């Protein structure tokens, strides 16, 4: 049972939920990370306050693991796939999340919380497709 960490998983998830809640309560916005990061890279959305908000979110997002690793004494990220696969995957994620208007935070966390049929459909889709991909790459190929 190495690696089964339900408690820290639950706590971490609740912190994500809290972050999304605060974002909605304070700013009235959905914290969809693919949208926030995507808006930084697509100059169509480049207005002054908008960029600042997005950068602040990204900085905060990066500070999270830093804070954790300071508190818990280090953080390891285990990446088992080759660089080429990662690049392909990155392009798919970048393109796919813009085409589908969201990712696990936008659709999965916030969208389902709003009971949005779009988000429920999207989440079901990417979850099942991802599971299928993992099945194929781990057990078939």
């Amino acid at each position: 049972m190495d690696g089964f960490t339900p408690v820290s998983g639950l706590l971490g998830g609740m912190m994500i939920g809290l972050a999304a809640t605060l974002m909605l309560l304070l700013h009235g916005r959905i914290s969809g990370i693919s949208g926030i990061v995507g808006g930084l890279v697509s100059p169509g959305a480049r207005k002054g306050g908008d960029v600042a908000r997005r950068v602040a979110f990204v900085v905060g997002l990066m500070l999270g693991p830093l804070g954790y690793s300071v508190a818990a004494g280090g953080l390891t990220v285990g990446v088992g796939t080759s660089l080429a696969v990662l690049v392909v995957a990155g392009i798919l994620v970048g393109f796919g999340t813009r085409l589908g208007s969201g990712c696990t935070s936008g659709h999965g966390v916030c969208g389902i919380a709003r009971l949005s049929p779009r988000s429920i459909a999207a989440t079901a889709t990417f979850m099942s497709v991802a599971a299928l991909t993992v099945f194929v790459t781990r057990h078939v190929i």
Partner: protein
Amino acid sequence: MADPEKVIGFLDFAGDWGYRSLAFVMGGALLVTLPAFRLILKRPRPVLADGFSLPTKSAVDARLLGGAALFGVGWGLSGFCPGPSVAALSTGATPVLAFVASMLAGTPVYAWIFGDPVIARAFSKVVSRGLGEQGLERRPKRSSPRFAARVPGSISSSGRGIWPGQSSVEAPNFGSLDREALRSDPAVLISVPGRFAGEGSPPAARVIGAALEKRRGKCHYVYSVGLCAFSPLEPSSLT
């Protein structure tokens, strides 16, 4: 979530149950947001902003599901989704950098294909400079007679570019042009609408261009992207 091995383990339904902890992550998040969102959205406005800025699209369409599927493949391959990958940047690990860089690259590709005006204009400048001065133009809705008429030189000043601010396409001067001959020449009819797959392009590119031209407007852009890979980056000349 920033640990891709764990994410892939979570998605591996046929594998070791030990990685189910990630189900607890999303469960934990929803535990908070489901009730909280209901309460918050009852308010007239958020605390620090004037109003709620919520997504308004409601249709479950092919774009949504197609995008979600592509994202799912990428997620399943790498174990990364956007949030954790950005968060993991703070570790400075090379694989994370590679993933985030390519994720950021995938975004403008989408914007170009689906018409973000600012990006599209920039891209079209690069592309048109490389492929000839015709630039990218919206395909006319009806077929044949207007295609035949759209030889270079007959592009009127009212030719609408797609993107706001794109000035009318300057017709390149190809010297004397026998329009009648051009109209009946099938090679021209294939290559002219394409604008990229001209005389200098490999036949495969021209055929593909012609096939895609028959389809709806969206494919025009996809084919533009694809043909950038095929055709030599030289102005196509019809003389």
